[in-house]
């Protein structure tokens, strides 16, 4: 990290609230870093940005950033963000959730924020486990994954966020890992730019709990594996070696919708993890407010 970036980051952090509650080596710090870089690159004023988070390790993120921040109840962040966005349609709303937060207890809210196309950057940090409560299985614990509540390995099918987002026609979906920080920054920048429901799944590491129980107790090893064990499914991307990665259970080709668009930015983003980008329509908050203005 360059000195310049470090100084910039400090401006966005509530330094007095540090250290974070996160374990050493946790991917959440990396993600926090990438998010504020993206906000900085977009040139946004801190007053123009909100971060709304749920409960869990990821939920703590909103406490550390110097934006307008709400640390909501478990799973409800998209619903809080919906109300906030209706009141302030021009605000950039960053909604940050963990996998259990977003896909289990908050599944209904996530689904309907997607369906309505409420303008927010929805970041789901997926580390396959409930961290703050001590390592219980989550909706994304893979079959065979060991947790404190699946000691012989999970027998439940994990949830596929991409498939869900496709079904709900979320206008934007991307995936990154905490090993691919430059890509993650670009993805968040793009998600801010499109001002619609823009969903980013970020694969993160919980080496302390999930890693220890599943044979990978070291943060560096776990993060390294995010590079070596993931791969693009689209040959066009394989060639470019820039990876959004991850074979999904639905077999979706990463970047398939946009990789041959002829648009250099789009193709770059496809190489970085945008799986589809069908943005362009206004988010619902602007439509509601415009309608109200016409009635008034």
């Amino acid at each position: 990290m360059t000195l310049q970036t470090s100084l910039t980051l400090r401006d966005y952090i509530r330094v007095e609230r540090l250290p974070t509650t996160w374990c050493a080596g946790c991917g959440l710090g990396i993600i926090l870093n990438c998010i504020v870089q993206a906000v900085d690159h977009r040139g946004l004023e801190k007053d123009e940005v909100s971060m709304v988070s749920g409960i869990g390790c990821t939920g703590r993120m909103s406490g550390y950033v110097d934006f307008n921040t709400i640390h909501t109840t478990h799973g409800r962040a998209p619903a809080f963000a919906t109300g906030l966005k209706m009141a302030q349609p021009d605000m950039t709303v960053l909604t940050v959730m963990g996998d259990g937060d977003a896909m289990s207890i908050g599944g209904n809210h996530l689904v309907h924020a997607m369906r309505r196309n409420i303008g927010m950057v929805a970041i789901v940090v997926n580390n396959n486990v409930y961290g703050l409560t001590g390592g219980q299985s989550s909706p994304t614990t893979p079959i065979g994954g060991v947790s404190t509540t699946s000691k012989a390995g999970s027998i439940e099918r994990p949830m596929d966020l991409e498939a869900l987002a496709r079904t709900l026609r979320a206008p934007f979906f991307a995936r990154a890992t905490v090993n691919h920080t430059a890509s993650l920054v670009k993805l968040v920048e793009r998600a801010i730019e499109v001002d619609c429901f823009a969903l980013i799944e970020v694969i993160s590491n919980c080496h302390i709990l999930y890693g220890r129980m599943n044979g990978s107790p070291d943060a560096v090893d776990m993060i390294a594996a995010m590079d070596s064990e993931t791969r693009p499914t689209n040959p066009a991307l394989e060639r470019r070696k820039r990876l959004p990665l991850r074979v999904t259970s639905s077999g979706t080709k990463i970047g398939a919708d946009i990789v041959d668009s002829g648009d250099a930015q789009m193709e770059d983003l496809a190489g970085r993890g945008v799986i589809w980008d069908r943005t362009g329509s206004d988010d619902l908050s602007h439509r509601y407010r415009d309608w109200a203005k016409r009635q008034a």
Partner: protein
Amino acid sequence: MSTPSFMHSNQAIAEGAIAAGCRFYAGYPITPSTEIAESLSGRLPEVGGVYIQMEDEIASMAAVIGASLGGLKSATATSGPGFSLMQENLGFAVVGEVPCVIVNVQRVGPSTGLPTKVAQGDVMQARWGTHGDHRIITLYPSSAQEAFDLTVKAFNLAERFRTPVILLSDAVVAGLLEKVDIPDPADLEVVSRARPTVAPEQYRPFDYSSSDIPPLAEFGSGYRFHITGLLHDESGAPTEDSEVVARWWAYMQRKLDDHLDEILDWDEILLDDADTAVVAYGCTARSAEHAVELARERGHRVGLLKLKTIWPFGDAIIDQLADRIDRFVVPELNLGQIRLEVQRVVGGRAKVEGINRADGLQISPEQILDVIAEKALA
């Protein structure tokens, strides 16, 4: 000057919300509250506001809090089962001190109960529904006019005290079609939350060391702050420091307890010379008022204490009456939720009798009259 019109209480609540400055509503359809949502879905856009139907009542309450933090006066309306779902985020609004109004048009419970029948079974849920100790304000109209007036008051109290305010109603009050005088905006007292005037770096959003309620900045106004359901210090930072938490508890109690004169609302009807007081609220107060008239015609010295603020409970009002009243009669469409409060305050100084039913039917004036007359003869 005012404009009289005929409307149902549910519509009067919607009009009261508009008049009070409500500009955001999030809700989920449920009988017998739905007309409030239907009215506001049309009325809010006319005044530049937003109506949104959410995926459930949990989300409705969440969106209301989000919009309130965005600077809009916000409300939701529901009935029993939905009120249960709202308790989680109602607690968040208490801890985060977020102004908002929650209307609960009661029906018979528990669970799905009798969806279209009247009850007053959520009085204690309004008081203690969310987990953890807390203070709450609850108002309860018994006519369409009061539905309008108390809705305005609910918003005013929410904004004044940075707190969720519950407006209870019931299936009978909801269905009343009555004349409502809507005051001219110039004649209506409308309170809006205090905004900070200090420099942003000096702003303490939860400054409970001060003597009054700390101002609330809206998001995007330059006063960036953190709001959390965790117990927090004056800056909003989560804390486990028991001294800070003890300070917070003291503030949360005094912020309502020190201002009961602004919060408590009640009517005393024919109580001056009474030896018997009927204590009632909502639809039951209507039966009680008629019963008092009939009893007076028969020579009984009976009056009515009509509660319009249910919580905080008007201890001082009951306490004063208990020194000169022999009998309290408390008719309720539940199994005695407010009767126990009256008993607590009376403390044995007078008899306290309940008239209770929760079978979906109203308590008639005659039923109350029978109790008044029977005991008077005995």
